[in-house]
């Protein structure tokens, strides 16, 4: 049985208590994510200029995992090209669900802390909800997306 500290690492606790970029952005693309079973809600705001994420923020309420994931996501994608963001989401999804994820360039960086989530299958959707919502915003699909 894995230690709870593998899931609730310092970085995750810190970002859940003091989320970064925790605000709306005027004039940005936005999408809403909702996890109807557990009640997590997140709205992601993203401003893309010349194919690059110029600004990104979020609002919402949820568990420590979902809040920390949204916060760390905003830090990870700011300044990245859209295709890099999608690549990062694929890597992030893998790190939440699989062992031995290949990341030769070290793109995951801090997001690696979510590797503890794979031991807790019911919590994977908490970690991935903000990312699904970000991609919906990039795809200009503002309708509420669900992880079910």
């Amino acid at each position, binding site marked *: 049985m894995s230690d709870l500290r593998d899931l609730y690492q310092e970085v995750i606790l810190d970002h859940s208590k003091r989320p970064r970029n925790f605000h709306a952005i005027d004039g940005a693309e936005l999408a809403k994510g909702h996890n109807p079973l557990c009640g997590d809600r997140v709205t992601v705001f993203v401003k893309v200029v010349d194919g690059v994420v110029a600004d990104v923020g979020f609002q919402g309420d949820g568990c*420590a995992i979902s809040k920390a994931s949204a916060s760390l996501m905003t830090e990870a994608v700011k300044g990245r090209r859209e295709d890099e963001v999608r690549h990062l989401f694929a890597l992030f999804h893998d790190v939440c669900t699989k062992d031995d994820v290949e990341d030769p360039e070290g793109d995951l960086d801090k997001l690696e802390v979510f590797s503890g989530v794979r031991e807790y299958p019911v919590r994977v959707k*908490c970690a991935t909800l903000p990312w699904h919502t970000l991609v919906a915003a990039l795809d200009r699909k503002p309708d509420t997306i669900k992880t079910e």
Partner: protein
Amino acid sequence: MPPWQGGGDMIRSVTFEKTEYADPPTKFEAGTPHIAGAVGLGAAIDYVQSIGFDAITAHERDLLAYATEQLGRINSLRIIGQARAKSSVISFTLAGVHPHDIGTILDREGIAIRAGHHCAQPVMDRFEVAATARASFGIHNGRDDVDALVAGINKVLEIFA
């Protein structure tokens, strides 16, 4: 209304020319009935009656009172729902910790609770909470289980300190 499925006991007579179904409800109850379930229900009723509802109620009330008192000593814990005649369930929230995180940590400590909106979102709105954690006590629980719950909650607070 046609039968939804074929099987034993749902026909009256069958020939190549014509099939006649049994009268409802048999028509809709094809196949082997749920015999094991009925036998199990009988055994469960015998078991509950051998203990007696008075004894069950007394045990559950004791656990509810004990748990209410023990949980009440935790500063950041708020018990949701204080009806005088409530069943032996305690819904609660911890300041700064989402109920799903409480659930995950208690689960790892061997304690099963329910966390979320409990399919009762209007009640969550009434108490102005997004979700709660909820522990239930029954005849298979003892005061030591309440103590384990309190220890588990202290572990939650330690992790989220």
